[in-house]
């Protein structure tokens, strides 16, 4: 797909707006439909589109797997961190009231940070899964018992990714 100029130009044009839309869904979730789960998937979709049109290697340069895997844990850590923070400030686990001077303000901060953690985990998990699936290769010494001889897995993976 890399040699198709239409796909290439459209992907490069759409990449930033998709991420912008994902961020809008992420941080506007208090007022409109949306939130961390949806935003995470949308942001991951931008990267997946990039990886499908260009190649898996270029996607790995854009989003190194090591960082993506770290962000998976980071999101869950941010969420739990909010809980621990409210815990340390003298309230129950995940009671956002104490995060700011006024309870309502604290709830706003808490929800925003927690949703950010959810978005981070979802986006990086989906991106990591895509990279693992697209780059999957059965080890040479462990060939599957039955495979149709007409299919060349590596060739088709490369063609698609």
């Amino acid at each position: 797909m890399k040699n198709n100029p239409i796909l290439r130009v459209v992907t490069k044009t759409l990449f930033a707006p998709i991420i912008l839309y994902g961020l809008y869904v992420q941080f506007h979730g208090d007022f409109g439909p949306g939130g961390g789960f949806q935003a995470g998937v949308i942001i991951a979709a931008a990267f997946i589109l990039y990886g499908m049109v260009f190649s898996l290697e270029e996607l790995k340069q854009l989003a190194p797997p090591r960082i993506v895997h770290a962000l998976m844990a980071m999101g869950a850590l941010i969420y739990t961190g909010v809980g621990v923070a409210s815990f340390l400030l003298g309230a129950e686990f995940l009671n956002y009231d104490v995060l700011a001077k006024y309870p309502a303000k604290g709830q706003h901060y808490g929800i925003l940070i927690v949703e950010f953690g959810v978005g981070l985990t979802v986006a990086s998990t989906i991106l990591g899964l895509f990279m693992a699936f697209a780059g999957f290769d059965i080890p040479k010494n462990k060939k599957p018992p039955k495979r149709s001889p007409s299919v060349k897995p590596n060739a088709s993976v490369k063609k698609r990714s």
Partner: protein
Amino acid sequence: MSTLLINISLVSFMLVIALMITFSHRLFAIIVMSGAYSLISAAMFVNLDAVDVAFTEAAVGAGFSTVLFLAAMAWLPAEEKRDKALVILPLIVCFAAGSLLMWAVAYLPALGDPSSVVHQHVAPRYLAESYDILHIPNVVTTVLASYRGFDTLGETIVVFTAGLGVLLILTGKTGRVQNDKANNDIRDEDE
């Protein structure tokens, strides 16, 4: 009235796609059609005013699952293996389960019925007090992140753990030939 018409057309679309999936033998067509099926169910969720669910269904069901299936399809033959034998028992089970479900549908509360059980528990309290306490217009977000923050933490951990498990299965080091440089995979960061 217009909602009813939209619902009828969407459901008939879904029925047609489901039948096409059943009778198709080409994997590529089946994957693409199940993506279309998800997209139409997303449209149904919009019609039911569940925009958040529609978002998720369109992005995950129609987008991401389709991509994953396509990536997995590279390892499979393009055509489904045809089975000539007539399958009586699965047919009976399908019809029995289907008629059981249709029978159960008759006992469900009407769509959007405010007096049904699910709308009597904590939902009225959330709807009444959440804006006054939290000043956040979207009740879905307040319930998800604040009232039910603990559940959402669990969901996030589930997503993380599931992703971790799949990554370990797909990119684990066991049985890998170390000096094989021919293929580009996640080995880079393993080393």
